[in-house]
């Protein structure tokens, strides 16, 4: 499967408080409403201006902070194809795989705001069409690939009745 969309560029250390602010705590049982505020404190224009299938592109340590799974969930719900970053925080990484949001570790300095991107999920290659380059991608660990391929953790457990990681 090939995902295509535009890049939305963010900086380093995008915390889960920036992705899913605490002042919307009361919307956590109303995910479509909560998704309207996704990344609001990092870029107030993002939620209203992004198109479905666009990419979130960031620097180091994306998703640091709270364990709120609502953060990757609303990124996915907003229609984002995948998050590309130089590195991810641990809990966010695990949560994203569990909810089926693809994450890609790569050198995001080679991507600018608005660049047209193509992610081939089966080969794992990211193509920056605007700059006409392919980006080297860090592959997912096997355990996580198994969960992602099953469609997230709930589907994984429903399918196998237990963890099936190797």
């Amino acid at each position: 499967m090939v995902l295509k969309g535009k890049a939305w560029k963010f900086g380093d250390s995008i915390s889960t408080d920036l992705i899913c602010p605490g002042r919307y705590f009361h919307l956590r049982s109303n995910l479509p409403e909560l998704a309207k505020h996704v990344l609001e404190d990092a870029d107030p224009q993002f939620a209203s201006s992004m198109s479905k299938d666009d990419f979130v592109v960031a620097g180091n340590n994306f998703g640091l902070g709270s364990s709120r799974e609502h953060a990757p969930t609303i990124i996915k719900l907003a229609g984002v194809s995948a998050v590309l970053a130089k590195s991810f925080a641990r809990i966010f990484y695990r949560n994203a795989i569990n909810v089926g949001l693809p994450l890609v570790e790569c050198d995001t300095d080679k991507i600018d705001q608005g660049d047209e991107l193509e992610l081939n999920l089966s080969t794992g290659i990211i193509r920056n069409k605007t700059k006409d380059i392919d980006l080297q991608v860090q592959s997912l660990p096997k355990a996580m690939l198994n969960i992602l391929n099953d469609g997230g953790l709930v589907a994984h457990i429903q399918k196998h009745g237990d963890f099936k990681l190797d």
Partner: protein
Amino acid sequence: MGTLAEKILTAKSGKDCSANDVVIAKVDVAAFQDGTGPLGVRQLQKMNINKVKAAKSIFFLDHAAPSPRQELSNDHMLLREFSKQAGAILSEVGDGVIHQRLVESFAKPGDVVIGGDSHTCTSGALGAFATGMGSTDIAIGMAIGKTWFKVPKTIRIEVNGKFQPGVFSKDLILYLIGMIGADGATYKALEFGGSTIDRMSMESRFVLSNMAVEAGAKVGLIASDRVTREYLKARGRLKDWRPLAPDMDADYEKVIKIDAAKIEPQVAFPHTVDNTRPISSAKGKKVSQVFIGTCTNGRIEDLKIAAKILSGKKRATDTRLIVIPASRDVYLEAMKLGLLATFVKAGAIIMGPGCGPCVGVHQGVLGDGEVCLSTANRNFKGRMGNPEGFVYLASPATAAYSAIKGKISDPREFFSAKVKREK
């Protein structure tokens, strides 16, 4: 041969494991709070699971406690109903913050503790492999009593020497995070040791483990020793104690040595926890609100230090002061010791046990441009409910002393003046 992380996971997975292995481990404690619980419960309902299997499955109502709005009241109802039906324990509004309650009554040395809250690593100070995860991971862990881990590599933090008067474990952990950065330990375990840690009270140790995640760590572990034993014994839990230490020849990714005597009081500047500087560079910064509490520094030891500084004094006119005991037991003890009266006389407002203003849900939300000096563990933009607010982090001593002065002030002044007075 084994680090603390490797030894606990070996015991809980039944497989002799070392760093980088992927293991499936038994879960002793699985916990949710009211912000992450509802999503977890819905995942379980989606899977038609209505009984929990983890030995201790607990729901804590603490982040929005008491509930400030109808949506959250409904979330609380969902958690109350589910825990009753599923055989889980419910920690009600007013019982306290998840991590304080976990160390007081549930987690023990050698346990695997998973929580739907990133600061679940707090219980690592008891020698438990305790870590935060998202709602789906916790839901599954609760339901089947197991979870999976990649065994982390360990960075050993060796601390020796004596703190200057006015310097505390909060300053040590802020100093360390400033040094290694907010991603300095991502995917890794931190293991604290050395003579300073050996002598340190359990309550001070919790501060170190609590903030391990602010360096990106999976767990923040401390050996279970006689200090651990005395803590559990005092809580009527002696049978929960057992000694646990890393092997002498454990394999560490690196060892960082810190001389405690060299550390000054630290302040984390907005908007990242690793933006840490010695207090001299923050001195004089005007403060609109001081907050003493949270799972980091809302324990009795913290309240005692704050009360000592605030005793017979008043908060500055333009500085509000909020004090929140982290649990019902801390509240009771503070009441018994007369600390609450000291705070109230000093011009503070005392609020019921819970997270309070820490995460911006309610209580003490900052106004535009306002500055809060907080004893919490996070100062991200928007953290206290307003992206136009500024949160600085420090120890309870720095917070209390600054509340009197109305600006960020060095608590060593208080302690050296006290030494002079006593001479």
